[in-house]
């Protein structure tokens, strides 16, 4: 009978802790409402315990109110203590009798000691060691035993003799048992909250990652895909499925075999993959796949794929640009060398015509002009930043300025240039520049032996059939029938360069001299 009552009381207390946990999950103990509800629960339980006391012998009645009230106050604080205390005190006063004063005193003492320890507890998490709980229970019940002296008509000592040892032995132990259950619940609650926090943090973190993140189990089933992956590949419905259900068979088979290999070997792998994303474009990813080891076992496969399309494109562009620069550099050196070779040949040709010091001086002057006419092509190339084409209008303007400065024909001679919109490749512009130099120099030096007034008109235009028309006309005395050394070389040069341009040269003598050249704007065999 006693055993049944004991089990009944214990069951009641266990039920109390379960319901307390249930309430705490929904209305936290840290809120006023939570504490009040816990108070009602603890008060109610103490009331039931008081209505079904454990009778050990005649006049020897135990109930668990001191345990329940002190623990309620310890774990849930003053508001809980107030409610539970009010309920039990009310019942005790209704029951009345000689033990009423002691009964109320025990309730008040238990509640105060509980609140006192609750206040002293620093942390918000109410977790206690068994020893702490036992000492707490011991204190509560020593006070309870001390309160037997408030009993009026029974000798306190005889009551103490009867219940002293059983109370000291059993009540603190009951406090430890119930306290431990409540403490464990607090621990579980904390674990749960920590877990939830951690889960939220890592979920948010994974979702913010600008990479495709996937977790799969050892059967190849997708456990998780992050937001970026879902946005890029529409992967949200992959979760719970294997590759066989969302990829073409061949691809799925390959992927699952690789996944298995990584899990079995326990070694991460990196590869570059091209994936078609939701926008329909193909993007290049660097996919890192790795086993996730837990308790010495690799049963989760993680994949992080980083979009490296932009990087790859930049690399390709850089490589292309570098190749272009190399080609260009070789081309430039070749041209420089070629131009110097031309100058060497010109000098040698010119040297063979020199007979007198005057001719030598003239030859120097002519060579200077030819070098300048070639240099101007390069100047125009880098000035315009178009390294392949020469704007002939700009070129002619510069050449005319140079020659006017060199030969200073005076204001009576007008030199006009017109080559609007004519551009030549670098291959054509060097011989063309040399031709223009020869013809313009010739006109400046020989067309007006007596000064002006006169005009030299230089024109270039596109003839429309892929040919360029070039004319240098002056209003001077016409081609001298037998020009001296320089004239011959100059004119031969013009003829040969015209040949190199695959052009035709016509010279007309009709109120001045007019050289007219037509040549194709593009080269070719």
């Amino acid at each position, binding site marked *: 009978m006693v055993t049944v009552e004991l089990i009944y009381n214990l069951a009641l207390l266990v039920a109390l802790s379960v319901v307390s946990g249930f309430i705490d999950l929904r209305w936290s103990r840290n809120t006023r409402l939570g504490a009040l509800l816990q108070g009602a629960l603890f008060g109610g339980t103490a009331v039931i315990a008081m209505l079904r006391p454990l009778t050990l012998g005649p006049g020897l009645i135990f109930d668990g109110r001191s345990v329940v009230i002190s623990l309620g106050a310890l774990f849930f604080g003053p508001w809980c203590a107030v409610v539970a205390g009010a309920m039990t005190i009310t019942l005790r006063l209704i029951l009345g009798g000689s033990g009423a004063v002691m009964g109320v005193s025990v309730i008040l003492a238990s509640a105060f000691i509980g609140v006192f320890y609750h206040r002293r507890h620093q942390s918000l998490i109410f977790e206690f060691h068994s020893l702490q709980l036992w000492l707490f229970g011991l204190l509560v019940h020593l006070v309870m035993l001390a309160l037997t002296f408030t009993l009026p008509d029974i000798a306190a000592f005889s009551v103490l003799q009867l219940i002293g040892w059983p109370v000291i032995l059993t009540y603190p132990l009951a406090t430890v048992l119930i306290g431990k259950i409540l403490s464990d619940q607090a621990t579980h609650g904390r674990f749960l909250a920590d877990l939830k926090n951690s889960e939220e943090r890592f979920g948010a973190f994974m979702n913010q990652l600008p990479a495709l993140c996937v977790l799969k189990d050892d059967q190849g089933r997708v456990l998780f895909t992050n937001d970026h992956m879902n946005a890029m590949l529409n992967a949200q419905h992959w979760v719970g499925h294997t590759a066989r259900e969302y990829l073409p068979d061949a691809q799925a088979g390959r992927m699952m075999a690789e996944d298995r290999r990584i899990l079995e070997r326990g070694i991460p792998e990196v590869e570059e993959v091209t994936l078609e994303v939701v926008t329909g474009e193909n993007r290049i990813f660097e996919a890192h796949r790795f086993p996730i080891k837990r308790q010495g076992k690799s049963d989760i496969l993680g994949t992080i794929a980083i979009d490296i399309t932009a990087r790859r494109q930049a690399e390709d562009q850089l490589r292309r640009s570098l190749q272009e620069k190399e080609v260009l550099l070789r081309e430039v050196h070749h041209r420089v060398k070629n131009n110097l070779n031309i100058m060497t040949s010109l000098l040698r*040709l010119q040297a063979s015509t020199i007979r007198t010091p005057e001719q030598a001086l003239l030859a120097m002057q002519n060579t200077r002009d030819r070098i300048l006419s070639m240099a101007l092509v390069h100047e125009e190339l880098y000035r315009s930043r178009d390294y392949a084409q020469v704007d002939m209008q700009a070129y002619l303007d510069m050449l005319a300025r140079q020659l006017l400065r060199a030969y200073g024909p005076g204001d009576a001679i007008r030199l006009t240039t017109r080559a609007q919109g004519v551009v030549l490749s670098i291959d054509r512009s060097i011989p063309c520049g040399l031709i223009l130099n020869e013809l313009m120099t010739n006109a400046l030096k020989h067309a007006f032996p007596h000064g002006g007034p006169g005009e030299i008109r230089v024109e270039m235009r596109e003839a429309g059939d892929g040919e360029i028309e070039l004319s240098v006309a002056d209003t001077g005395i016409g081609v001298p029938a037998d020009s001296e050394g320089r004239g011959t070389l100059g004119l031969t040069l013009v003829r040969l360069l015209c040949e*190199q341009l695959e052009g035709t040269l016509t010279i007309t003598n009709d109120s001045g001299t007019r050289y007219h050249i037509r040549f194709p704007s593009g080269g070719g065999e």
Partner: protein
Amino acid sequence: MNGLRVLIVEDEVIIAWDLRETLERLGNEVLPIAAAAGKAVEQARAAAPDLILMDITLRGERTGIDAALEIREFSDVPIFYVTGNSHLLHDLQMIRTHAQGVYAKPPSEDQIQEMLEIARRTGGRGIDGNILPE
């Protein structure tokens, strides 16, 4: 010293003119200048020169090496490369043309004399693989 009949293959007219002047002054006959590979082969076949001075970069797609390979199909005429493209010196195709020598452009008068001398000695017959890098 007998004059030789020389074919100049060169797309840069001023350099070709210079070469011609020098060769003519040294008593040789210079054939009309070829500026492109096709023209060079045509001239070599039609005029059977004693010596060819061959530039490598020519007008158009085909190079002097292409022209030399084609000329080798019907002639052992001594060929000297006169070129600014010294980086092509070890070109395998070029070695296959069994040229008599390679000279940097433009060659000096002494170098031209040397070419003429070699051409005279070999009597118009090519020597296998005898490349004389400059």
